[in-house]
């Protein structure tokens, strides 16, 4: 018996898990808008000086 018989199915399973996570993210709309979030994170209340 070689470790190959276990390692390979595990590798495929890991890839499957990643894929599953991605599909979940896409379905919940996290990839719908890629323009606004990068701007949203710029707005941090603490770092903006109040005049």
């Amino acid at each position, binding site marked *: 018996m070689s470790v190959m018989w276990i390692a*390979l199915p595990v590798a495929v399973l890991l890839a*499957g898990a990643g*894929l599953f996570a991605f*599909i979940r993210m*896409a379905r919940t*709309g996290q990839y719908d*808008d890629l323009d*606004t979030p990068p701007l949203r994170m710029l707005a941090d209340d603490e770092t903006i000086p109040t005049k």
Partner: protein
Amino acid sequence: MTPSVRAAFTPCAHCSLPVPPGLIDPTADQHFCCSGCKTAYDLINSCGLSNYYAFMHRLNDRPAKADSSILTSTREEFDHPAFMAQSTTDAGDGLRQIELTVLNMHCSACVWLLEKLPAFIKGVRTAQVRLHGSALTITFDPQIVKLSTLLRTLASLGYPAHPAREVSAAAARRINDRAHLIRIAIAGALAANIMMFSFVLYGGLFVGIEPVYEQFFRWLSAVLGIVCLVGPGMVFFRSAFASLRARSLNLDVPICTALLVGGIMGTVNTVLGSGEMYFDSLAMLVFFLLVGRFLQHRQQRWATDEVELLYSLTPSTANLIDAPGAPVSTKVPTIALQPGQFVRVLPGESIPSDGLIVRGETAIDSSILTGESRPVKAELGASVFAGAVNVSSPIDLRVTAAGRATRAARLMQLVAQGAQRRARIIRFTDRVASWFVVGTALAAIVTFLAWMGIDKRTALEHASAMLIVTCPCALGLAAPLVMSIAMGRGARAGVMVKGPDVLEDLSTPAVLVLDKTGTVTEGRMRVTRFEGALSAAALAAQLERQSTHPVARAIVDFAGHLADTPASPSSARHVIGSGITGLVDGLFVAVGSPAFIHSLGIDTTTDPRLDHEITSALDQALTPVLVAVEDSVLGVFSLGDRLRPEAPAAINTLQRQGWDIRLLSGDDPAVVRQTAQRLGIDPRHALGRVSPEEKFDYIRTIAAQNKRVVMMGDGVNDAAALAAATVGIAVHRGAEACISAADVYFAREGLDPLLALTDASRRAMTAVRVTLYASLTYNIIAGSLTFIGLIHPLIAAILMPLSSLTMLLIAMRARTFAPVTNQPDTLIDELASDSANTPIAAAPRPELPSDRAITSFTTVTTTGAQA
């Protein structure tokens, strides 16, 4: 323009525009240019959100000027239950969700402020901005806050908002996008894993591999490969099948042949336990093609989204009345109208639904539906259609069909279907595809026959390998990508192209038909000079205040300063298409064409100076409008539409490129000929007084000679001609119907976008040809290797991604749509050259001393805004 000019003014605390001197309060710390800005400032500060200004300052940006018109508009119509039901969705817990289209939203400070909305308005639970598409999604509690309050608050902040239309279509597209993304992810994961297994197998070729492992890896790649083909790869089979059923060949046909042959051969060889397998290349192919198609899809969407944005901004309310003649009881959104209800339509408003006139008579401009640009008389009992504009007097309607059932809505649906059908064509690559099918099939047959003579057992295998390696995957990826990148860049430069076939059609010179008004001219009537008594001009302006006709507006713009009080409305009579008469300050005044004045029994030739003016105006292709007081003519306005400053140079450039330029217009033939002469267009190809039907026929006649016709126009009456042309181009501020019928929409005015577009088309087609040659070279090399029996899955696995990457590089580097030149500078040049060339400056102009100060102030303000 310059900093010194700006510094001379006190900036408004909200929008940073200069505050008019009269509004500066020396005792206050902050100054405001209008009450709207003050409201916005107070609101933002009272919520502790003054960081907004610091933020804007850091971005070197400033808030949009707040909308002070909110004081007059309550927007209560949006609280109507029918509207709530149609445009909001249930968000659970008694909350409703709505998507709004918001104007003026452009940077991170806007995102920040708008997403702080729950802090401003009690009852708003969440607010989320989607910058691309200018959308704001709000969840709110209808028990606590009304939709009208929400919209009013947004407007008072300087972000006028409208409920988005076609939300369901947008949502459907979003779901479609997600499915696409998921397919890419699956194909990518499978391709990467298969590649990993293949590397083991390829390694085994060189250093040896135990048969049991070899079989294990082969089975693993086969299983994943088949999943990839029947899962994400299914889209290609569907598309190829659809194309075959339509008795045509698209590029998906040879691609699917390769996928199918490779899949079957690989499966058979896996079961047999020996022979070549191509699952790694096939999975990569599916992955690359899906990515290419996704990018193409997204870029194309830029264009359609922009057009939809425009559509969302059109007003959508109706004045509901209880019975004919009753006062207006409430404003309702047009979609809430029911057949049998009564609505009032005021002059200048568009008709909200199909209906019958039950009270009043008027002139109706139904050009949006019929293409007839002149207003038509509509009497009691006549049916009118939604979308038409009521021109002259108020009418009451009984609604016969509303919302999606109206004739206009059905027309729009037809146009939308037409656009969809057309956008699918990528003719160039489809033509190439048929050659590819023939070529690969021939190569496979020749290979099979040749190898039958050498080694019967491997003949089939070699033929299959030939089909796989000569698959036009690189071309299938590159051509659409070049097109879509060009379209995406175009959309950002203000040129919305609806389909890739447009770029192909514009890449070589053809017949170009321009509608005069609005494309080569500014599209707006202006009084270029006035001859006669100033008091007559003042009387004319007073009378014309009651009309919305373009001529009337031009006269009011010109001479409105001279007269402040409008005459009482009952004294005016508007004769459609020719003129207006009425009593002003007890005097009988008539304003209209020479023929109209003549028909009133007034002699137009008494004053030789004015008579000469009429003749010279006609000679210069201007429209003379006479003012008669009591029984004599006292003044002549000369009206004209100015030529765009960039037009002559642009036309010249296009002509040198080989375009055959024609000019069509509904205007007087003399005007059109004169314009053509100034532009360097052959006057024989400049036709005047062309009706919408004749425009349509003209285009069709040229198209029937198998010539490509590009038509550019802006009026609703151009819609039919635009649809009939090979490529229809709608320009800025064009009517809705015209934009829908066109293949291209320019968000910028003038002819510069047309030059940019033809240039980009040429470059895009060159890039497509380069990719074609590169792809052919690759196929010939791979094909020859296969033919002599040298091909191996390993070589295919290396050549395939390599060729795809080459294509990507070529596609990305195609220089389409170079950056636009600086707008404000050109504006200054235009003004300078205009004053030198046009009759405006040369003509005598009445002095308007009272308005001088304010006029110059406005000029400074607007240039300041562009700095």
